[in-house]
């Protein structure tokens, strides 16, 4: 639901797909102005929505449908989809989350070794203090802060705070700004 709120801010004109219960952008999907948000795309492609088939009819354009129902083209070309800032933040939330999961074994390794003995602790601290080490720390801090703030935004949207269209866009920008501020602050402190 958070993604739905996120991508389609209230007030945006949407038509209901009578078959899947999936909101579909009302704008026509012509080659130049294929304006589409990712939420219907996600719904169309997920098994849970009961899409029976989806096939490519031309570059960046697919057909989906169920049985006898009307087929409609959907733009899949990400470069032709103009995503609102909230949508970009939402995708970034997933990307940063996946990155942090990949980082988990390394984090556990560092935690284990930092607790082992003073020599290893000193070695890890020295590694983190080198220019490359600082850069790595800053990148990880940014990824974490970005995930943290977009997560906070999701939680607030869930309870109905800042979910009007202008507010949702504003606090999406705010989430970007906050994570950059954290990176700057860490950079100063390092």
């Amino acid at each position, binding site marked *: 639901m958070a993604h739905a709120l996120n991508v389609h801010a209230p007030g945006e004109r949407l038509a209901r797909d009578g078959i899947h219960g999936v909101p579909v952008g009302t704008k026509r999907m012509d080659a130049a102005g294929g304006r589409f948000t990712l939420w219907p795309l996600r719904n169309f492609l997920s098994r*849970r929505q009961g899409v029976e088939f989806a096939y490519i009819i031309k570059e960046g354009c697919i057909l989906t449908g169920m049985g006898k129902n009307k087929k409609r083209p959907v733009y899949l070309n990400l470069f032709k989809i103009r995503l609102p800032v909230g949508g970009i933040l939402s995708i970034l939330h997933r990307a940063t989350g996946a990155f942090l*999961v990949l980082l988990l074994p390394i984090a556990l390794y560092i935690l284990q070794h930092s607790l082992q003995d003073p020599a290893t*602790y000193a070695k890890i601290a020295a590694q983190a203090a080198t220019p490359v080490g600082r850069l790595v720390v800053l990148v990880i801090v940014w990824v974490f802060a970005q995930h*943290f703030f977009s997560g906070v935004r999701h*939680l607030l949207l869930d309870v109905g705070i800042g979910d009007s269209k202008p507010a949702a866009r504003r606090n999406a920008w705010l989430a970007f700004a906050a994570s950059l501020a954290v990176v700057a602050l860490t950079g100063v402190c390092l």
Partner: protein
Amino acid sequence: MRRVRSAGSAHAGVAEWLLQRVTSLYMGGFVIYAIVHLSLSPARDHAAWKAWFATGHVRIAWALFLASILIHAWVGMRSIYLDYLHPLWLRFSVTLLTALGLLALALWAARILLA
């Protein structure tokens, strides 16, 4: 009715939804606590770091934190796979590998916490 049935049961996914939010609240709280604590009394050497980690409630807080991470990671990765990995065999294999990997990390984390 056919439409309703094809969409699955109404409460499917509520547990995951809730787990994702509860764990995020705990992790957020813990991270803020850890940052505040470590800026007020930085772990300058191994002894200080180890002493902080050895305190009973801190160790339990860490245990809950690591458990929350693994649960949060499981729900999050699973929903990414559900959305983007369409061939069933691929989704099944990647989900299984992720489950095994996270279980391995859980056992490793338990070893660190019990050491």
